[in-house]
C-alpha cells in the first residue's frame, strides 16, 4: 500500500480560480445593470465614490476567488492507506476525509477543455452517502495516470480475496469491457434535432431579456410593435419563428457536443457511460443502485419508433449536475432498446402484456381539464373577441389528448415486477421491482368512485425526492390488485 502523498496538478489552481471567477461574473453584471451604467472613474464626478466602492467590493471578491483556487491546490493532498482513499485539505480548518474503497460507488471522470489540453481529468468520487447533490470527494485535476492509479488501487482492494487477479489483467479487462451501446452519428443527429432543449434555451433567453429590461427601452419597442402589428401579423410571426429557429439551433449544437461519442459499457456489475466532444465525461453507475427504469417516448420520437431510456438511481449524481436521472440511452430504436435492456437486466420482463384502463374511464382523462379550460376560453373569447374564439379549439384538442392518454394507461404485474404505462404527452413505461418501491398510493374522487375507477401511484427512490409513476383511472379492482400485490 503506497503511502506517498499525491497532489493535484498545478492546473487545478487555474481551474478552480476560473470557476470561482465565473461565478463572480453574474454579480458584476447585476452591479452594472442595477446602477444603470452611471459609472465614472473620473475623480471629480459624483459617481466616482460609488463606482470605486462597488468595484472595490467586487475586486476583493475576485481576488479572494483567485487566492482560494491557489490555496486549494497548495493544501489538497490525497493518498491511499489501509484500503482507504484519504484526502486532506484546508488552510485554516484542516479537513480530512477517509473513504474505504469498498464504499466507493463510482468514480466519474470529467475532462473539460482545460483538462484536455494538459492531459488531465477531474475525478469525482461518489459513495452511497453522497446525497447532498455533491460528490464525496472531487479531485479537480490530476494526470490520467494518477486517475488510473486510483482505480487500480480500488480494484486491488476490492479483489483482495481473489489475489490471482494481477494488475495486468485488470488493466486489460477495462479495455475489453463489452460495449453495449454506441450512439451512431445518425442517431446523434436525430437526438439533437428532436431534443427538448429548446425550452431551456428559450427560458434562458427570457431570463436574459428580463435582466436587461432596465437598458432596453421596452415601451418604445412596444409602441413600435403596435405599428408593427398594423403592418402585419405576418412579420411578427416571422420574427417569432426566426427566434425559435435560432433557439433550436443552439440546443442542437449543445446536444451534439454533449452527446458526441455516447457509449455505454458494462464492467463487473457496473455501467460505464462515456460521452462528450469538447468536455469528455465518464460516469460509472453500479447496477445495484438502480431503482427503476423508465422508457420515455415523446410523441415525435414515438412516431419514428425511437425512445429514451432513463435510469432512476439512488444517490450518486453521475456528474450530471443536479440531476439524478441518468439517460442511459438518450435515443434508441424501441426494438433495439428492449433487446439491450434484456441483456443488462435479464430478470426483468421487458415485454409485459398490459392490462388497460377500462373504456368507461375514458371521460375522466379529459373531463378534469374543463375546470381550467372553460375560464380560459371564456376570458380569451371575451377579451380578444373575434380571434379569441379560436381558443374553442382547445376543447377537441384536450379531448383528443385525453383519449390518447386513456389508450396508453395500463399496468402489469409479473411476479416481483410492476410495470406502469402512462402518458402526459410523452409515453412513459415505468419498470419497477417490488423491493424498490417506497410506497404505493391510490386516489379516487367522488365521481371516480361512482364508476369504480381508481388511480394508482408508485414511488421509487431517485436522488433526494423520489420518482412517482402515476397511472390514472384504472379499474378499481385492478388498482386494488396492485395494492394487495404490494402488501404481500
Amino acid at each position, binding site marked *: 500500500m503506497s503511502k506517498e502523498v499525491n497532489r493535484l496538478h498545478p492546473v487545478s489552481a487555474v481551474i478552480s480560480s476560473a470557476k470561482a471567477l465565473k461565478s463572480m461574473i453574474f454579480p458584476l453584471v447585476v452591479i452594472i445593470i442595477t446602477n444603470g451604467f452611471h459609472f465614472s472613474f473620473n475623480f471629480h464626478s459624483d459617481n466616482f465614490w460609488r463606482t470605486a466602492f462597488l468595484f472595490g467590493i467586487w475586486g476583493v471578491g475576485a481576488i479572494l476567488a483567485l487566492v482560494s483556487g491557489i490555496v486549494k491546490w497548495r493544501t489538497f493532498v490525497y493518498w491511499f492507506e489501509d484500503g482507504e482513499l484519504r484526502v486532506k485539505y484546508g488552510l485554516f480548518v484542516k479537513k480530512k476525509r477517509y473513504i474505504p474503497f469498498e464504499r466507493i460507488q463510482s468514480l466519474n471522470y470529467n475532462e473539460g477543455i482545460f483538462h484536455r489540453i494538459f492531459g488531465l481529468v477531474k475525478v469525482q468520487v461518489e459513495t452511497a452517502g453522497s446525497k447532498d447533490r455533491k460528490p464525496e470527494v472531487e479531485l479537480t485535476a490530476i494526470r490520467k495516470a494518477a486517475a488510473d492509479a486510483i482505480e487500480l488501487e480500488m480494484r486491488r482492494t476490492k479483489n483482495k480475496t481473489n489475489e490471482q487477479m494481477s494488475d495486468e489483467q485488470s488493466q486489460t479487462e477495462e479495455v475489453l469491457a463489452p460495449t453495449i451501446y454506441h450512439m451512431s452519428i445518425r442517431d446523434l443527429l436525430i437526438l439533437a434535432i428532436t431534443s427538448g432543449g429548446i425550452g431551456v434555451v428559450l427560458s434562458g433567453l427570457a431570463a436574459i431579456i428580463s435582466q436587461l429590461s432596465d437598458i432596453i427601452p421596452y415601451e418604445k419597442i412596444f409602441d413600435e410593435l403596435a405599428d408593427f402589428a398594423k403592418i402585419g401579423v405576418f412579420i411578427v410571426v416571422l420574427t417569432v419563428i426566426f427566434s425559435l429557429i435560432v433557439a433550436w439551433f443552439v440546443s442542437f449544437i449543445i446536444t451534439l457536443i454533449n452527446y458526441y461519442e455516447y457509449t455505454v459499457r458494462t464492467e463487473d456489475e457496473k455501467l460505464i457511460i462515456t460521452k462528450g466532444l469538447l468536455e469528455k465525461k465518464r460516469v460509472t453507475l453500479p447496477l445495484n443502485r438502480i431503482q427503476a427504469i423508465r422508457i420515455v417516448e415523446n410523441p415525435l420520437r414515438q412516431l419514428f419508433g425511437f425512445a429514451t431510456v432513463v435510469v432512476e438511481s*439512488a444517490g450518486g449524481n453521475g456528474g450530471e449536475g443536479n440531476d439524478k436521472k441518468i439517460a442511459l440511452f438518450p435515443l434508441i430504436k424501441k426494438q433495439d432498446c428492449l433487446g439491450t435492456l434484456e441483456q443488462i437486466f435479464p430478470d426483468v420482463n421487458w415485454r409485459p402484456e398490459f392490462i388497460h384502463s377500462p373504456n368507461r374511464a375514458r371521460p375522466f382523462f379529459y373531463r378534469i381539464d374543463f375546470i381550467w379550460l372553460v375560464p380560459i376560453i371564456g376570458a380569451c373569447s371575451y377579451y380578444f373577441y373575434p380571434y379569441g374564439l379560436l381558443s374553442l379549439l382547445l376543447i377537441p384538442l384536450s379531448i383528443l389528448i385525453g383519449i390518447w392518454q386513456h389508450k396508453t394507461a395500463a399496468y402489469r404485474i409479473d411476479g416481483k415486477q410492476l410495470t406502469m404505462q402512462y402518458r402526459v404527452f410523452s409515453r412513459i413505461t415505468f419498470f419497477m421491482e417490488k423491493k424498490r418501491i417506497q*410506497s404505493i*398510493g391510490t386516489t379516487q374522487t367522488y365521481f371516480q368512485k361512482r364508476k369504480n375507477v381508481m388511480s394508482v401511484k408508485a414511488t*421509487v427512490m431517485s436522488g433526494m425526492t423520489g420518482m412517482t409513476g402515476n397511472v390514472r383511472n384504472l379499474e378499481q379492482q385492478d388498482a*386494488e390488485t396492485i*395494492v394487495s400485490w404490494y402488501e404481500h
Partner: protein
Amino acid sequence: MRSEPIHKISRKGLTVWRLYGVLQTIILLIIAALVCYGTYYFEWPSFIYFIAVVVVILSAILSAYIFPKVRWERWRYEVRESEIEVQHGLFVVKRTLIPMVRVQHVDTTQGPILKKYGLGNISISTAATVHTIPALVMEEADGLRARISELARVAEDDV
C-alpha cells in the same frame, strides 16, 4: 373493495382544524377590511365590497366548518405488523400503503396550538417520501412512533 383503515384521528383534532379555519378566516377578514377601506378611500367599483363579504363568509363556512368535518371523517390510519396504511383527502380520497421495510425514520412534531390540546403530528419517512398523520393524542403518537420504529427495525434494508 378493500376495507378502510380502522383508526380515526382524535376528536380533538377536529377542534384544532376548526381553530385553524377560524384563524384563517380572521386573517381573511383583516385583508377584506383593508380592501374595503381601500375601495371606500379610492372609490374603486362597489362590487369589490360584495366580493370581500362573500369570500369571508365562504371561508367561515367552508374552512371553519365543512372542510374540517369532511377531512376528519375521511382521515383513517392503520399500523399493521408489516405495513402502514393511511387514507385522507377532501375531494379526492388518497390511500397510501407504506411497508415497514421501507420506513427509514419516524418523527413527531408539535406546534403551539397542537400542544395546548395535547396533540402531535407523526411523520413517517421512507427513502423517497414523507407521510404525515396529523393531530394524534400525544401519548398515542409517541407510542405509535415507538412501535413503528420497533417494527421497522426488524426488517433489513434494500436501498
